[in-house]
């Protein structure tokens, strides 16, 4: 087990290193770092000064060493637009994105799993078919388009919910959150649902497929032969078997939630780091873009690591095969 954990951590570090090298190559070796890292509006003297400060006149390997050193200090350059360190600006926006992504994750589980189990238990019923049809839609419709429809229906036509923004926030453990105020919640419903829909469809399909698979297993028949109630069979025997893969896959999807938050945040003007990224793209604020990329990579690699370790801790079968190997 320890060996496995160490090996898995090692893999994550390799992934991080690989991404760092790729980003370095993209920015310094292929692109012109002067373009990317120095404000286009700077004058000649400023350019020379920054070039010297960033060491862009030095050989490539030295630049790389410097890049790595800066990386460890969390220094990824200064925003052209805000004139502050890019990392700082992004970290400021991180809580809003995390709040949105986590809420969406919970929503997709809480709504998706029951629907998926239902559709898996009654695949031929009208209800089961409708759930599947809806999930195909949720799967097919591009995220931003679903968001637009939501705004059109719930904000423009019905006027029930606000079309954008984060609403009122309160401080919780030093972080500003929306979900504790009524206004914040009202603002959060649509974007969170929007971000959740795609994963919810995934959860529904996954749960349904797994439920059907598990239902055919002998141990379910044996559980019935023991005289267990169907409630217990569904809630314990089936659910426990499907939750492990579902939660694992969904955990791995948290990273893509953060990436997809870019879209949702843009559609709903949610002030998270995804919206910051798009704004930065439009303003050509490249240090922020690079910093966003590196930070997201770190987050995703960390999430994948944690989920993998949790998975192996949860599933007795995996646990055993590792002990053996």
């Amino acid at each position: 087990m320890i060996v496995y954990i160490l090996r898995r951590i090692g893999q994550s570090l390799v992934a991080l290193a690989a991404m760092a090298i790729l980003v370095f190559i993209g920015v310094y070796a292929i692109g012109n770092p002067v373009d990317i890292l120095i404000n286009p509006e700077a004058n000649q003297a400023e350019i020379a000064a920054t070039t010297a400060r960033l060491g862009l006149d030095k050989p490539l390997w030295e630049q790389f060493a410097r890049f790595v050193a800066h990386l460890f200090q969390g220094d990824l350059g200064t925003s052209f637009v805000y004139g502050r360190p890019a990392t700082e600006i992004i970290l400021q926006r991180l809580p809003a994105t995390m709040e949105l992504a986590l809420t969406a994750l919970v929503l997709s589980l809480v709504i998706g799993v029951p629907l998926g189990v239902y559709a898996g238990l009654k695949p031929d019923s009208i209800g089961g078919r409708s759930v599947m049809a809806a999930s195909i839609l949720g799967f097919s419709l591009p995220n931003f388009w679903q968001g637009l429809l939501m705004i059109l229906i719930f904000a423009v036509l019905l006027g029930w919910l606000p079309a954008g923004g984060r609403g009122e926030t309160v401080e919780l453990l030093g972080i500003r959150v929306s979900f504790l105020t009524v206004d914040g919640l009202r603002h959060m419903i649509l974007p969170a649902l929007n971000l959740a829909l795609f994963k919810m469809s995934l959860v529904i399909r996954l749960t349904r497929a797994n439920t059907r698979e598990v239902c055919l297993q002998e141990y379910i028949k044996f559980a019935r032969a023991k005289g267990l109630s169907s409630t217990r069979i569904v809630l314990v025997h089936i659910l426990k078997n499907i939750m492990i893969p579902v939660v694992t896959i969904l955990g791995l999807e948290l990273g893509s939630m953060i990436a997809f938050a870019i879209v949702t945040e843009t559609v709903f003007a949610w002030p998270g780091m995804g919206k910051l990224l798009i704004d930065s793209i439009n303003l050509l604020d490249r240090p922020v873009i690079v910093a966003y990329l590196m930070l997201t990579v770190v987050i995703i690699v960390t999430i994948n690591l944690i989920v993998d370790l949790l998975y192996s801790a949860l599933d007795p079968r995996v646990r055993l095969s590792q002990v053996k190997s």
Partner: protein
Amino acid sequence: MSDDAFISGLAPIAAAKPVSIDTPLRRIVRGFFEDRLAVFGLAIFIAIVLVAIFAPLIAPQNPYDLAQLDVLDGGLPPGSASMSGGGIYYLGTDEQGRDMLSAILYGLRISLLVATVSLAFAIVIGVTAGTTAAYFGGKVDSLIMRVVDLQLSFPAILIALILLALWGRGVDKVIIALVIVQWAYYARTVRSSAIVEARKDYIEAAHCLALSHSRIMFHHLLPNCLPPLIVVATVQIAQAIALEATLSFLGAGVPITEPSLGLLIANGYNYLLSGRYWVSLFPGVALVVTIVAINLVGDRLRDVFNPRLQK
């Protein structure tokens, strides 16, 4: 299934299983056409492709020829007649008096073009990488698959968006970005089925005949990996269309001069809150219909190709 069970038991295994006269292809095609929804999806998709190809002939106007636009007709709701008597705008017009129907037809062209070209390149690269990995195994395999895994652990949209953010907009750039984020899916798919095939006897036999590596790989290994490849390609083309639309919607995709459906939706987004829904809604409907049609086909293909689900 049950016939197999019968053969065991007490009876001597005398008769071999009757050889089916059906070729697998025939069975798959028949299986596909048994599902009316999938046939419907296929019909819609073919229609969309035709419409996109012949857009210049069908569209009432060339939406990007400024001379054909009439500013007086700007912002007309669906079904309005042109102020200057030039016909009816069935899907309304945008601010500049551009006929939305024509804009959608031209937009479809760009969306499909980007998706299919990137699909083709991604398949070529992915299939080559996947077969190579499966065929040679060992170090080659683990190197290629490491790269694939690394790439697949990051969301496609993130990679594509960052690439385009650094490169700038452009149809060619979008295509390259899509190829980069998609090849890995094909590589993984092809590898996993090729690895099963590579262990089979006929590949051994091919080795004994001293056929060249590439001949074995592409003439013997690859054809047997086609079913999963086709399924993944169908799913991926829908994904590519959606991804391109998203990138363009975010302002990092195709340039304004060559608007795809995603960019049309983005342009209309600004008018959504003021009630001019049609500028955004109809391109979106076109996008959604395309994607859903492809997915209907893909879903059915997955079922007919998967022997496990066959009764």
